[in-house]
């Protein structure tokens, strides 16, 4: 791959108790690009995503094997602090989940706990502008964020993630709970965001993956229900000339 990589997944295996949810994943994520994970439900897309910022640590009984190299270190090395890792690798979830606080507090909270020294008002404006939300909320920054529409809430969550200034933003089906117009706004937003950040998105929507992503990883479950990587490559190539039969079946809707 000609692009510079920011993450390398090497032989990644994730277990929930005895169940191997994800099996032997090997792939490199390019910097400042959008990489999409697609595949049928339950194939381990979210599990891989959560492995990247060690969110799986919060789930009792998970075990991770293999390596994820970020900034020349395996993030599962004992000396790596998961808390500071998550400041560099932020996350946006499937269901919009702003804090039950004001819009501006949603932005500033992450900065506060990271002892941000700059001007908070500027940070709020800057982050909301970058998340294409500023014009809609600039007059009600002190209103409760839960009063916003679903699409606005999700863009607020993106703004909140941006405000911490991470390297990578992980998005787990960020538009699946939204209507088509809100979905388009989020998609447009991602395209501008990848100038400053690396974006990894999970989606079950193939059109979405083909519209927005630069690279696509297709995952499937094997006979033991473990998810594995079937094919990975430039989105343009994977969707037009899939190398694998399973991929071809899936993207042409002949799956299952």
């Amino acid at each position, binding site marked *: 791959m000609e692009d510079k990589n920011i993450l390398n997944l090497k032989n990644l295996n994730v277990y929930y108790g005895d169940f191997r949810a994800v099996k032997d994943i090997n792939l490199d994520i390019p910097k400042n690009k959008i990489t999409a994970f697609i595949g049928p439900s339950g194939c381990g897309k979210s599990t891989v995503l959560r492995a990247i*910022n060690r*969110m799986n640590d*919060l789930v*009792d009984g998970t075990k991770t094997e293999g390596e994820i190299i970020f900034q020349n270190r395996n993030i599962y090395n004992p000396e790596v602090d998961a*808390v*500071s*890792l*998550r*400041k560099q690798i*932020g*996350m946006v*979830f499937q*269901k919009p*989940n*702003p*804090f*039950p606080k004001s819009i501006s507090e949603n932005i500033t*909270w*992450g900065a506060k*706990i*990271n002892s941000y020294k700059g001007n908070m008002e500027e940070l709020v404006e800057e982050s909301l502008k970058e998340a294409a939300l500023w014009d809609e909320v600039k007059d009600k920054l002190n209103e*409760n*964020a*839960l*009063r916003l529409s679903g699409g606005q809430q999700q863009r607020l*969550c993106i703004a*909140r*993630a941006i405000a*911490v200034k991470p390297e990578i933003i992980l998005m787990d089906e960020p538009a699946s709970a939204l209507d088509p117009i809100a979905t388009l706004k989020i998609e447009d937003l991602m395209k501008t965001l990848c100038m400053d950040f690396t974006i990894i998105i999970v989606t079950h929507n193939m059109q979405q993956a083909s519209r927005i992503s630069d690279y696509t990883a297709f995952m499937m479950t094997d006979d033991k229900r473990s998810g594995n990587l079937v094919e990975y490559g430039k989105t343009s190539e994977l969707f037009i000339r899939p190398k694998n039969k399973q991929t071809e079946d899936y993207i042409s809707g002949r799956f299952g």
Partner: protein
Amino acid sequence: MDIIRQRKNLISKIVFQMATIIGIVALLILMFSIFNEAFGYVIFVNEKSPHEIFNSEKNLGEATKEELISILEDNISKGLMRRFNFEQSFSERSAENILELVMTEVVNPKIVKAWSLTSSLFGKKKIIETLKNDYPKGNLEFRSWLSPNFLLSPQSSIPEKTGIITALTGSLMLLLIAIILAFPLGVGTAIYLEEYAKPNRLNNLIQLNIYNLAGIPSIIYGMLGLAVFVRFLEPITSGKIFSQTINSTANGRTILSAGLTLGILILPIIIINAQEAIRGVPKSLRFSSFGLGATQWQTIWHHILPYSMDRILTGSILAVSRALGETAPLILGGASTFVAQKPDSVFSKFTALPIQIYQWTARPQPEFRKVAAAAIIVLLVLLLTLNAGAILLRNHHSKKKKG
């Protein structure tokens, strides 16, 4: 088929309705019997009638200060007069104060017969007959046993003079001590169990024990309090190690010991409620906090506690209202049977509302039953206030979370 189903549906509906109605009727009967006792006609007899001692067309209430002093001089001994003057000189006393002396020392009204609210409303003729035939010198008056005087007076052996300030302050201080002990300890334990404890054998055992503790009869807690706070920790709970001057007749049977016992009693309830509140915090809130690089403690302090606090408070208030009605642990922990003085420190002897009520109902004089009814009303009002507060908080909670 359909008819059978509908009939079954109807029958179960009627059964549930009946159950509800029986419950409500029982509650109404209870409330009625309490209010029936707390208000009603009384006949009181004066030792000396006001007209006898005050030869004037005017009422005693309109007498001047000088007239009142001369009434006192005419009717009580010189020694008593001197004592009153010594306590506070007559020139400094107000007219009302002297009127009160006249009332208690000279007129000295005594209740000789009392009726319930129903017999007062429906048997007035009979009451007037009784007055004429049996108590020709008596005066009839409609009396509310629940009165400002009742709320503010200390305990007394005369029913019309007794009050609940002793028991009321006792109860409030007990609750305060209990909550100061149990709230931080309970919330802390709940946070530990929910957020930090791994589900291993030991922690499961602890959890199981907490559930069991919440179901233990309160008298067992009383025995625990007696052994630990009253006996073993006596130097602390009696206050002796803090100061030698503290009156130590309580010997560890202090308000502090009993308050701590109640605190231990409500601790498991507070823990369980707080755990449930914390468990009710949506996972997504935790994840969004951790996803921004927050530590466990930052997540707990900034999100989990604020989100669950009103439910934690609701549960704690309900726990406190349970403590308010507890009697058994207090009896074992040494609530005194007769305390005529408000507790002035946590090392004082004390009595509490339910104990006071029990004692009054156990007295032979029928008037004390009316006093007890008045005290029950006070206790119920306190309980209802606490529960209303809990409900308000709960509503506030559900409103806030909808944004």
